[in-house]
């Protein structure tokens, strides 16, 4: 979508609010901090609530078609290659038995271990502070389920004594080891698209990926 970022002659600069409303993107304006809904082009929170940006004409087409119709077109100069992914913008997804949970990396930066259940399997998603290293472990040992937190480069049992190495979950001091589980990274918006029944983890609890299915 393309909007005119101007209200009553005042030019706005808009950033990414990092929230979804109506399963769609929201913006923040950099002068009042009001929050805007992308599909409505309308402020839904803050001082500008109710203000609406004008929608401008635009098209979605292949590059070949657009160039054919507009030989003099300019092209947004983007950084070379399409592989410059920034982990900070992504989420770590655990999918087991058709159930899934996505842990946004920004959330894991504030709390580096997500103790969650996916399809009844107790798992821990771990992001090493200050690095891009992440792991997914089962929290089930032979006889019990534990919760984990991070202490330096070691995983430690909450309310217990067991410690594990972060790289492979090996039990330290001869203890039992954690099982590694598969995970993958995804952009949050792609996760919502491909896993509409999934959930986002936050330190405060799980949030449905798509309200109302």
């Amino acid at each position, binding site marked *: 979508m393309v909007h005119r970022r101007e209200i009553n002659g005042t030019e706005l600069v808009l950033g990414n609010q990092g929230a979804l409303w109506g399963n769609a993107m929201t913006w923040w304006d950099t002068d009042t901090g009001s929050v805007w809904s992308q599909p409505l082009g309308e402020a839904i929170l803050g001082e500008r609530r109710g203000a609406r940006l004008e929608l401008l004409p635009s098209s979605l087409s292949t590059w*070949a078609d657009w160039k054919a119709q507009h030989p003099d077109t300019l*092209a947004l100069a983007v950084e070379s290659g399409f592989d410059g992914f920034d982990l900070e913008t992504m989420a770590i997804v655990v999918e087991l038995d058709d159930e899934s949970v996505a842990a946004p990396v920004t959330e894991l930066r504030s709390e580096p271990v997500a103790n969650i259940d996916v399809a009844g399997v107790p798992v821990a998603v771990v992001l090493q502070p200050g690095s891009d290293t992440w792991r997914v472990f089962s929290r089930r040992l032979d006889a019990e389920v534990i919760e984990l937190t991070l202490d330096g480069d070691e995983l430690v049992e909450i309310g217990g004594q067991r410690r594990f190495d972060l790289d492979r979950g090996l039990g330290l001091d001869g203890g039992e080891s954690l099982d590694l589980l598969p995970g993958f990274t995804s952009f949050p918006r792609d996760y919502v698209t491909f896993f509409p029944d999934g959930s986002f983890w936050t330190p405060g609890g799980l949030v449905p990926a798509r309200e109302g299915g």
Partner: protein
Amino acid sequence: MDRRPHRTIGPVVIAGGLLLAACSDSAEDQAFSTPAPTAQTDENAPDLPPRLDLAVPDPNSIYDPVRAEEPLPPGYRQLLRRDAIEPVYDPVFTTAAGVDWPEESLVIGVDLNDEARAYPVDFLNRREIVNDDHRGIPTLVTW
């Protein structure tokens, strides 16, 4: 249960947009990706707009209705911090000959004030927001 350590699968990226970046091997694409004259050397090439570089404050220094605990509309979910997905505040343009995008990749096209501009969807998948100035019209391109 197998207690041996094994490797995780990851990171694997499932960005739908990546599929669009699949390169074509057609002769047309090969020819298209060869270096072409720039705007400075080709008198027929369009003029490039001046660089835009909008001033953006630290998001934490600006009022946030969520932090201020304004009543949130139903269905509002804060998932990431502001600008965790970094918007573009300083877009730069080149000529069509200056890029080697796959012919079948998608672009958002905008034609205003007798000037056409193309924004690749692959790029917008990652950055989501471009603040631009289209020959005097302040625009916001979002995906």
